[in-house]
């Protein structure tokens, strides 16, 4: 951007990539994947009091092909995980993932036979939001943080680490203590 702020300079020299990133970060289209409690807080964030539209991310689309941000809000069970993985695969590049809440980040308090221990076992995640559920301010902060990642101000940590389908299957299976030691 020009340092000259008197209005005389009307040309903003900018790389095309920067311009695209600027456009992308301010028009994120989230796909809300709200399965449980976090879905209700996601609704709070989208609704009148917190109003996610202030950050350009209010155009909620339920079709993965129209979205660039997958917002996983809630517990993902092993029964649900193939569905979530399919949805992730259907989204077009570039795409980002936010794991909202403890369950989607790590399984949370549900360390049980039917719950996937964090969606990062089956897909790369850009931002984790702690909380059970996170308060709307927390979710808004994560969107702002993601905007910095898109902008290039913060490096994206999962580049080059695409989880394959086989790895995803492996992650879901039960390992005995001795298997891990071997």
């Amino acid at each position, binding site marked *: 951007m020009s340092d000259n702020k008197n209005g005389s300079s009307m040309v903003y020299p900018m790389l095309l990539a920067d311009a695209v990133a600027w456009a992308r970060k301010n028009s994120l289209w989230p796909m809300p994947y709200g399965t449980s409690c976090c879905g209700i807080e996601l*609704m709070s964030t989208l609704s009148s009091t917190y109003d996610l539209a202030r950050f350009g991310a209010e155009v909620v689309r339920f079709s993965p092909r129209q979205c660039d941000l997958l917002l996983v809000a809630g517990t993902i069970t092993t029964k*649900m995980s193939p569905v979530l993985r399919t949805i992730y695969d259907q989204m077009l590049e570039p795409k980002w993932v936010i794991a909202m809440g403890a369950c989607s980040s790590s399984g949370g308090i549900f360390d049980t*036979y039917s719950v996937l221990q964090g969606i990062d076992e089956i897909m790369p995640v850009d931002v984790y939001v702690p909380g059970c559920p996170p308060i709307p301010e927390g979710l808004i902060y994560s969107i702002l943080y993601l905007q910095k990642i898109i902008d290039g101000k913060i490096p994206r940590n999962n580049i080059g680490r695409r989880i394959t389908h086989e790895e995803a299957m492996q992650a879901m299976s039960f390992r005995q203590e001795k298997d891990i030691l071997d």
Partner: protein
Amino acid sequence: MANFLSKQEAFNEMLKGHYALGMIESGSEKRQLEFDALNEPILWSHNGADLMTLLKGFRGHPNYKLDYLTDLTAYVHDVHHSFVVVYQIYSPSTHVRLRLKLLIREGEVVPSVTSLFASADWNEREVYDMFGIVFGNHPDLRRIMMDERFVGHPLRKDYDIKQRMPFPDNIMISMDRCPTNERGEFLPCENKESNSAPRESLFDVYNPSVLLNLGPSHPAMHGTLRVMCRINGETIEDAKCEPGYLHRAIEKLGETNTYHQWFVYTDRLNYCSALNNNIAYAMAVENLLGLTLPERAVWIRMMCMELSRIIDHLICVAINALDMGAMTIFWHLYRWREEAYTMIEGMCGMRLTTTYARIGGLSYDLYEGFHKDLAHFCDGMLRALDDMEVMLTRNRIWIDRTKGVGKLSAKQALALSATGPVLRASGVDIDLRRDRPYYFYEDVDFDVVIASNGDVFDRYLVRTEEMRQSVRLLRQFQARIKPGPIWVDNPQVRIPEKIDVYTKMEVLIHHFKIFMEGIDVPPGEAYTAVEGPNGELGFYIISRGGPKAWRLRIKSPSFMHYQLTEKTLAGERIPDAISILGSVNIVAGELDR
């Protein structure tokens, strides 16, 4: 209260006259009668045929028509060897409860009661899924919570709680009956979409049976619901619902965590009204312990229950309208939900997952200025409801979309074990707050709201009026609440004050013991039900002593309502299916547990 207690007492006396007291041993030929911690009768039948005779007998009993199946579940009696199947039945006319039990050995086939109670269908499937108990003559005995390919039965005591199993793809739903082997046992269904509609014919536009899959990720499906419909044009000819996409093993966690630790899981059952679940669960454990709360704690708890009823109904009505395109209602009503959240945050520090109640008391007293906030909320809520009625109740589009849609007669509703607003919208006059009162509900004035048609419009009206009644109740509570203690005076369960924990050695040890070891609950069992926002929410706890429950069963209204939706969806249009699903208010956390 005297009314329902005397009826239950008379019923118990009648049973005592017929059956001997004591617990049945396997192989015994006599029926045995027991009473639980709440003095509710438990009748042991000696075999499957006897159970059917008993159920038929009580169903058609001239004085007590026990023809409503509240719950059907099971528990492990003796690790590896035997199970007990539990049938919880209720009389809608006299409000008495009876629990029938059947002791079986592993591998024994139990007769299915679906011919007597239509609502037993999914419950029996759940028992089969979780315990591996086979029900003979069941119409469609498949797994319900877990995937078809899952191996093992998770609620058995020998199943490791962390034993996960991966699945490569989503489960297929078969629209047909499952095959059986030569011994009459049901085999797992093959993975095929339908037997009668070959794959290629699905692309034929004139094919009268096209399959349409809604969910589990679908804009109009709440949370994780999935419905597979066979449609002819716009009309649904046949529907299969698939729950279990949010099965988080909360019941199994109840067996591995102490009573205190399990509080956090109650929040995540019906997350739209977490306060109500906390209190219902606390009440269930207190009933087992035989505690009586001080007055102020009871008033605060009742306040919380009514407040959560309002916010639950708010979200149900708002989302139902949102699904049909009425966005304004959602934005307008959500503001009042946020007001309630702010109050709840002041009470316990959390907006959604509250964990407010404790066994024998409450975590905090009301904050300063609560009554002012509540008065403001009550006034604003009534105004918001008026606004909503202006926008919806006489709105031509709303009426056209909801009137006569998803009709459910009173008879159907009772047969399918509907509860709460859905049952009352069909014209059945049952409300546990009035019929089996708990806390001080018999001392306050409120009207039980009933409608007559049982369609989506009537459910909306019932919910709206119930919110007004809840506001009326909140104002009465506010007038009657007095300062006082919020904990029972019992050092065994009372959590010490933090200031004492930090300054006194004995209190510190006591605090450590309560949290590290847990409260010792005496052996026994109790079924405690409250009238939750969605209907009858019950906790059936079996204790064998010690700080952990032997079996912790949650009777959730959503489970029955989802089953009811499956059975009544045939004949409706696709857009109507969305409004019906919204109107019965299925909360996935409570449905799948």
